[in-house]
């Protein structure tokens, strides 16, 4: 029993010691942080006019001078962070001028050193800065760091830095392969990172289309979104046929936005796909780029078993203009008691109301709105349907 008590005593002593040490350490660390913050703020205040000088003259022909006088280490860091903040927000010649200044101050060299020698989190921060600077010489070291990095947010910070600094597509390719090697479905993130580069992505992304790895194909598909590239089509077909459910969905989304590479025939097939998300996407897109020959397929969509697909089909029909509105009205009358008729009616009323309110803001929409309203009134002449015309009291906004 005494033993029990003594272990409890030891435990208490241990805990007390830990807490005291912890609290003391915490206090010391906090004190240091507070001092550093205050000091940094003071340094930035001291150099306030210097930054005004930079802002005023960065666009001029004269070279930018580094800050006058001897700088303490923390002072340099404070100035460095502010410079990076500024450089992140601009582009063009003036950013290059600031980058030149940064280099002249020796800061780029210091970042390269930290990249190789610092603690892990310091390395990642240095990588981030070097990315903003687009320092080409840093690329090999950055790639090295990328290869050793575990999968997580830091991986992408380093990847972005590489994307920004890369001067040859080979580097981008290498980077993509490293990330793809982790076998995680982060395709959108990779595509986004690649778009931070100022290089032309098309050639090397197109080369991915021929790869076996579906991940690489997907990255290419996403990265080339918006480029009417004929080679995308076969890759898309392949992913559609053989991919997992999520891959198929991604492929459809990538292919349909913003500029469709899909043939209308394919679009119709997709609107009957077994996956409801794909049917949904197809229904949405038909309203955006569709022509009147989409109407029968959208009408089919009104009968889908999933409410969301019905809803998007109805909205897309409305977007097609007068022919679509006509089709909706007909369905609303003929299939009044079926889900298709109900969704048609509801979407009609809702969209007409929205168009009515919008027409108050955008006068060019008044005429189309009234044409649609007239079609609606032909089918539903009763006044009880409460769709206000534009002349009626405009809805109050805050202003």
């Amino acid at each position, binding site marked *: 029993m005494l033993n029990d008590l003594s272990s409890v005593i030891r435990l208490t002593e241990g805990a007390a010691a830990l807490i005291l040490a912890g609290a003391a350490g915490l206090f010391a660390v906090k004190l240091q942080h507070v001092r550093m913050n205050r000091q940094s703020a003071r340094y930035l205040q001291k150099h306030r*006019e210097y930054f005004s000088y930079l802002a*005023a003259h*960065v*666009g001029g022909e*004269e070279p930018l001078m580094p800050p*006058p006088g001897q700088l303490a280490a923390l002072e340099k860091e404070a100035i460095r962070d502010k410079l990076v903040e500024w450089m992140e*927000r*601009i582009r063009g010649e*003036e950013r290059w001028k600031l980058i030149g200044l940064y280099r002249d101050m020796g800061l780029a060299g210091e970042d390269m050193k930290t990249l190789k020698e610092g603690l892990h989190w310091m390395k990642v921060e240095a990588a981030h800065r070097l990315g903003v600077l687009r320092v080409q010489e840093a690329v090999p070291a950055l790639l090295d760091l990328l290869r050793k990095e575990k999968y997580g947010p830091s991986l992408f910070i380093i990847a972005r830095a590489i994307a920004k600094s890369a001067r040859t597509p080979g580097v981008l390719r290498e980077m993509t392969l490293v990330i793809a090697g982790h076998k995680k479905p982060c395709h959108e993130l990779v595509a986004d990172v690649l778009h931070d580069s100022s290089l032309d992505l098309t050639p090397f992304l197109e080369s991915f289309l021929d790869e076996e790895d579906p991940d690489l194909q997907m990255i290419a598909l996403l990265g080339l979104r918006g480029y009417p590239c004929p080679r995308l089509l076969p890759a898309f077909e392949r992913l559609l046929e053989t991919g997992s459910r999520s891959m198929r969905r991604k492929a459809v989304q990538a292919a349909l936005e913003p500029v469709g590479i899909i043939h209308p025939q394919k679009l119709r097939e997709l609107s009957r796909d077994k996956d409801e998300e794909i049917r949904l996407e197809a229904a949405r897109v038909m309203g955006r780029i569709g022509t009147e020959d989409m109407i029968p397929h959208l009408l089919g969509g009104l009968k889908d078993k999933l409410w969301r697909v019905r809803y998007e089909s109805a909205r897309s029909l409305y977007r097609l203009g007068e022919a679509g509105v006509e089709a909706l009205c007909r369905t609303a009358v003929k299939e009044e008691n079926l889900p298709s008729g109900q969704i048609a009616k509801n979407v009609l009323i809702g969209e007409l109301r929205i168009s009515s309110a919008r027409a108050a803001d955008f006068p060019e929409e008044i005429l189309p709105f009234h044409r649609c309203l007239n079609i609606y009134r032909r089918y539903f002449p009763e006044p009880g349907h409460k769709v206000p015309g534009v002349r009626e009291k405009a809805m109050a906004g805050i*202003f």
Partner: protein
Amino acid sequence: MQRQTSEWAGRILSGVRRAMLGSSSTSCGILLVEGDWKDSVLRALETRLLAEDPQLKVQFLYDRDLGILTLLLEGEKLAKTHFVSLQAKPFLQQIRKRNVRMAVSAFPGYASPTEQELWRMLQMLLAGGDAAEKDIMIYAGRKMEKKAPTILIIDVDETVPQFLNPRLELQGYDVHNACDGLEGIRLCSELLPDVVITELSLPVYDGYQVIRSIRKNNELDSRIMVLSDRRLEHDIRLCFQLGADDFIRKPYSPVELEARLKRLLSS
């Protein structure tokens, strides 16, 4: 007072002419510093400046009655003169233990400064006591004479006005800032700015509301430029539909921004 200053101006002018005749330079930087300074201080300052840049050619002209110290920097343009003021300021402040105010300018050689301009520069130096931020004022020459167009910048990110204000003011614009939609709308109706540069993601009222409010206000004839990090097509389209005149994506090119600004103002 008037006679004194015109005498002073005359002295400065002849100093400038002498400087430009002597060297083959085509420009001269002028730095005005207010205050009483001992000769020893001025010597020390000169030594200090030459130590940092041995190539610098500087003339000191001190008018004790007026209390104005003038530094003429032969062959130097505005940016370098501004930089020299940054070097001089901490040195002088250390001695005086108070804020030292300065005015900076530079004149190209083919049109030497007129008395009038010097006089304006002096006025600027002696006058501006309100903004404690502005210790170093820049006089950018004749551009600033005309009625300055008013620009309102609305952005919650404070680095945007930090970067844009000095350069736009140098161009002669009268720049104001707001950091949310509500303040932006309020300042619009107060200032009736010529151009409003606004971000879209703003607290309280977003950029779209700001655009809408400006367009609905019949007294306001402002041009609206949207400076935003939103890149999606429908965002851009909505801005123009609501009545914005231009859209620039962040990260932006300041050169491009200024060019478009000029175009908006001239239309």
